């Protein structure tokens, strides 16, 4: 299977010449496998670029089938949603997965960002067939030929990590998440407040172990490396991680390849390339290969 990057940036799209190499669109990644539906991870602004390719892959004629796995519904992960042309073509079929919201149906969550007063029209314009699938962290389900596993991520409002297995290969999509080390993030608004309560420290440890088990043996781990170590120490409550933590997870789990993802808006091209090289050199003796997610590039698994 092939994994292609369409949006690799976090927070908001960055229109700046110093990120033009790595790319400025927000989160969107596609996984394609022979004779199987396309799997799309997140619907950031990169989705619009993907949209332009998919219209030539059956979705322009209403013969497309895709699964959209959203890590969470913070704005930078859904802002391409209404701009996705295949939704407006009759015949296309989608399964849209997102973490179950407490009191709202999934369709309402996506509807809430569309139509008045935020957009010109709503989901009633969609012509394709959509199945809404709320997911709960920890569950495993099958869609088409894929086995999809989920895990709880450490982010305000909680995000979901996905592991997609197909024909003996495993790809892990893991953003947005802080390491399960200093602060446990969940519902409500978070300020910087490292945990001191033993019960919460125990929970951090438990979730951290679940995460380690989740990535074990994967071929590729695409991981939130929004922060430098220093930035993370200042902002453990933001729900983002570092390349160092990615390496630790990958090594611990025997992951073949770690890919740095969900870049900070002001992580310029040369800085990101330097960070990738630094990690690669530091771990030259280990089995983990380190890569950098760049728009329009792909990996074969």
């Amino acid at each position, binding site marked *: 299977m092939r994994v292609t990057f369409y949006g690799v940036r976090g*927070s*908001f799209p960055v*229109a700046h010449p110093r990120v033009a190499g790595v790319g400025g669109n927000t989160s969107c990644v596609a996984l394609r496998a022979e004779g199987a539906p396309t799997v799309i991870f997140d619907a950031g602004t990169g989705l619009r670029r993907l949209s332009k390719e998919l219209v030539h892959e059956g979705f*322009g004629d209403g013969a497309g089938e895709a699964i959209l796995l959203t890590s969470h519904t913070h704005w930078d992960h859904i802002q391409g949603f209404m701009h996705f*042309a295949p939704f*407006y073509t009759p015949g296309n079929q989608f399964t849209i997965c997102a973490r179950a919201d407490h009191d709202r149906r999934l369709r309402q969550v996506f509807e809430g*960002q569309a139509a008045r007063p935020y*957009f010109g029209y709503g989901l009633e314009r969609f012509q394709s067939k959509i199945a809404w699938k709320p997911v709960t962290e920890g569950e495993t389900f099958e869609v088409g030929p894929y086995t999809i596993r989920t895990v709880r991520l450490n982010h305000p409002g909680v995000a979901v990590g996905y592991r997609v297995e197909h024909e003996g290969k495993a790809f892990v999509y893991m953003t947005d998440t802080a390491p399960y080390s200093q602060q446990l993030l969940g519902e409500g608004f978070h300020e910087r407040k490292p945990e001191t309560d033993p019960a919460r420290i125990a929970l951090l440890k438990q979730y951290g172990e679940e995460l380690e088990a989740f990535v074990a043996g994967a071929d590729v781990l695409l991981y939130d490396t929004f922060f430098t170590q220093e930035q993370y120490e200042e902002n453990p409550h933001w729900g983002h991680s570092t390349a160092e933590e990615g390496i630790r997870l990958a090594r611990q789990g025997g992951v073949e390849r770690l890919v740095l993802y969900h870049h900070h808006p002001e992580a310029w091209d040369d800085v990101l390339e330097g960070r990738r090289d630094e990690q690669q050199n530091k771990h030259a003796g280990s089995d983990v290969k380190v890569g950098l997610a760049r728009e329009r590039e792909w990996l074969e698994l």
Partner: protein
Amino acid sequence: MRVRFWGVRGAFASTQADTLRVGGNTPCVEVRDKNDELVILDAGIGLYWLGKQLLTGPFGRGKGNLTLLLSHTHWDHIQGFPFFVPAFIPGNSVVVWGPGEAELQAVLAGQLDPTYSPLVSMDNFAAKVDVNELSPGQQLTLGKLSVRHARLPNGNHTTVGYRIREGERSIAYLPELEHAGALAPAALELAQGCDVLIHETYYSPAQLEAGGASLGGPSAPAANGHSSFAQAVDLALATGVKRLLCFYHHPDRPDAEVEALMQAERERIGDATLEIDTAREGAEFEL
């Protein structure tokens, strides 16, 4: 009056390298009077970069005051607000004015809802943020700047256009509007005789003719409620404007195409005295 552009792209940020000379951020314009009083027009992604710049002055010390004028609350005009760093510094003050039909405070808070944002609520801005709704005909005096506004047609809803005057000089800001059939009367009135007209040019004349181009691809609905380069020029000519700055460019419009469309307009108007240019991010002018 000084005016600087931080976001000039319409609907959706464009990050492609061939759009960055004009600029890819969604709408945000900085206006200053001669005493440096700060008024910001719209809160698209450009607001993030303006916010960073402001930190080097009083806003970095919690001593900044500004007024934000919103044309409307579609995402591309408010999506920079949660990333405006001065709003997280205690002591700063942000006074927001915008259209009132949908309870502006609730609409702005809606984008911070925990489903969509880690900010959760407007209460988590450390600065003082005051949200006000414009009443019809209301005029504002902000430092030396006199501001009036009008409702403009925009597809199935309306936007607010602004005219800002300092002394004898004035600009008109018409970031999104539709001239359905004839030039919109409210736009004619607002732009009449101003020195600089900032007018949306989302469509090429051919795209408008074809019923509009969609944002998402061939099968997506055409975005309606927008103007073409030719309509912006026609409005400028009809109101005796000296200088037109094209604004709110389509996200797929490369720099070279913006230049070509403006050149076609210059040729079309022949000897008429109108300077046609585009708003460019980072560019500044003084009146």
